[in-house]
């Protein structure tokens, strides 16, 4: 990873709030590098500090400690006026859209252009092209109160893009939207990333959102980044418990295990139960078949989920394996060697995947 490719660099960021006598540390020693063209996801439960962290990028939140470098510029060293002009290079969208209710769609998007050098007709043309870009052509004259949530977020996206920023920050931008609209907005962000080459940083608590568009992910817990990596590595080989929770919720395997547990089916399932996580090429091998052929182990599929993430197959399987002990051990070794992440699960225990 070369330095000049990093468009957003957060170095050892601390954010501490003073709440009366107490000091509350919202962000603890976080360093993040976002490369040009990335769609970088920061995922965590509410209260994990991700919104605070993302506000550090455009210094809406001043870090107590650490450096913020965006596009080669150290924002923490800038004077207020310089910071304001640097902010024009960083668009931001919000959970509650934050549009001006007193302005029409057109004027909301025109809003950030008021101090630019563009002529009046250039501004109008720019606003019209932005409206077209986000697909709101017939709504230009409406006011925010007349729009649906998804449409409002489109206006907010157009507004954020008005100054041609190189980075777009999305702070829980889809959390107030229904699933279908969420998908549409995420598709739009992904399209903007491809067409305009804009780097996107999204904050979310939904693994599905991350899964849909991100290429890199950081997982936050209690103010710290506990795990970071490519989407595939996070999804295929999650290391931290929280990351596993997110992945398991997203693949719905945790639901299945809970159901087995609740329905008291654990005793009816014979053999050893294993959870397999696998990526890419190993997927195409007929795993279940080869287990039987090579080791005489019978695999019963309790659950399986396979999806395409960035053109790579990512799968999760829950198998109950029956056969003699030594062949079972051999089979598990074989799986481990073929880049499949294997974990044995005791269904009778408290469910904790």
């Amino acid at each position, binding site marked *: 990873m070369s330095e000049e490719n990093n468009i957003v660099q957060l170095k050892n960021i601390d954010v501490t709030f003073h709440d009366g006598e107490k000091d509350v540390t919202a962000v603890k020693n976080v360093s993040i590098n976002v490369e040009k063209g990335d769609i970088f996801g920061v995922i965590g439960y509410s209260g994990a500090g991700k919104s605070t962290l993302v506000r550090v990028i455009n210094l809406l939140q001043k870090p107590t400690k650490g450096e913020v470098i965006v596009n080669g510029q150290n924002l923490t060293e800038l004077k*207020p006026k310089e910071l*304001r002009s640097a902010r024009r290079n960083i668009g931001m969208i*919000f959970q509650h859209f934050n*549009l*001006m209710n007193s302005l029409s769609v057109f004027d909301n998007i025109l*809003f*950030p252009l008021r101090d630019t050098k563009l002529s009046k007709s250039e501004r109008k043309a720019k606003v019209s092209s932005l409206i077209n870009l986000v697909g709101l052509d017939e709504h230009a004259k409406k006011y925010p*109160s007349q729009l649906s949530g998804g449409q409002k977020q489109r206006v907010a996206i157009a*507004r954020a893009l008005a100054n041609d920023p190189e980075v777009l920050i999305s702070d829980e931008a889809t959390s107030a939207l229904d699933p279908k609209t969420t998908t549409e907005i995420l598709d739009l962000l992904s399209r903007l990333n491809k067409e305009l080459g804009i780097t996107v940083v999204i904050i979310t608590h939904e693994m599905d959102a991350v899964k849909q568009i991100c290429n890199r992910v950081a997982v936050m817990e209690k103010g710290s980044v506990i795990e970071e990596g490519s989407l595939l590595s996070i999804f295929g080989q999650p290391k931290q418990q929280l990351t596993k929770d997110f992945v398991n919720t997203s693949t719905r395997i945790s639901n299945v295990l809970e159901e087995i547990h609740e329905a008291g089916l654990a005793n009816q399932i014979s053999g050893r139960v294993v959870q397999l996580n696998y990526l890419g090429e190993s997927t195409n091998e007929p795993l279940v078949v080869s287990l039987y052929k090579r080791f005489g182990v019978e695999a019963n599929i309790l659950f399986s989920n396979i999806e395409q993430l960035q053109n790579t197959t990512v799968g999760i399987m829950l198998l109950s394996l029956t056969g003699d002990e030594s062949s079972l051990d051999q089979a598990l070794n074989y799986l481990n060697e073929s880049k499949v992440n294997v974990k044995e699960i005791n269904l009778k225990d408290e469910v904790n995947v």
Partner: protein
Amino acid sequence: MSNILNTYLPNVVTNWYGEGGFVQAIWETLYMTFYSALFAGIIGIILGILLVVTDKNGIKPNKVFYNILDKVVNLFRSIPFIILLAVIGPFTRLLVGQTIGPKGALVPLIIGTAPFFARQVQLALVEVDPGVIEAAESIGLSPLQIIFRVYLREGLPELIRSGTLTIISLIGLTAMAGAVGGGGLGNMAISVGYQRFENDVTIVSMLLILVLVFVIQGIGDFFVKKLEH
């Protein structure tokens, strides 16, 4: 027509034109209302903005400044108007050279109304969605631009609503000021109508003030309706 007026409103008719008549009183009330609304409006908006901006959740928090201004506004709001009239007499004389007449009433009216309006402005602007302010900051707007383009723009319907309320309460105060020498319809109702037992004068004064209040309320409602989306 003139017979009916002469029969039912004899004193109103004789007191209509001329020195100390209704026409002059209406004029004086409008004069006091207009100029005090203008100056109290300007002062109130400035103070209200300062309160919102320096509040701990504002865009330029300043604890000391906020606390002082907050207390001063409260203090002046707590003084009963009729006492304020008397207490600031010397100051009024210094400023406009007289303590009676519509001009002399202006100073206490402005000082009595501005803190009230400042509080109304503060309440109106505090209602502006903090998220919108944050969005404006993220766009790179300066604090001054945020005040003019976001606070005053987004808060405008609420500002007009509270401005209307303030002007109506101001009309009430002009009547009180009138009774102690300020002139206008309040003076008409009390020192002519009430004290000389010319009840028709009192009633017509009241009706004229009501008309003024309704007109102002109507204008305010019209603009609020037009601005709210």
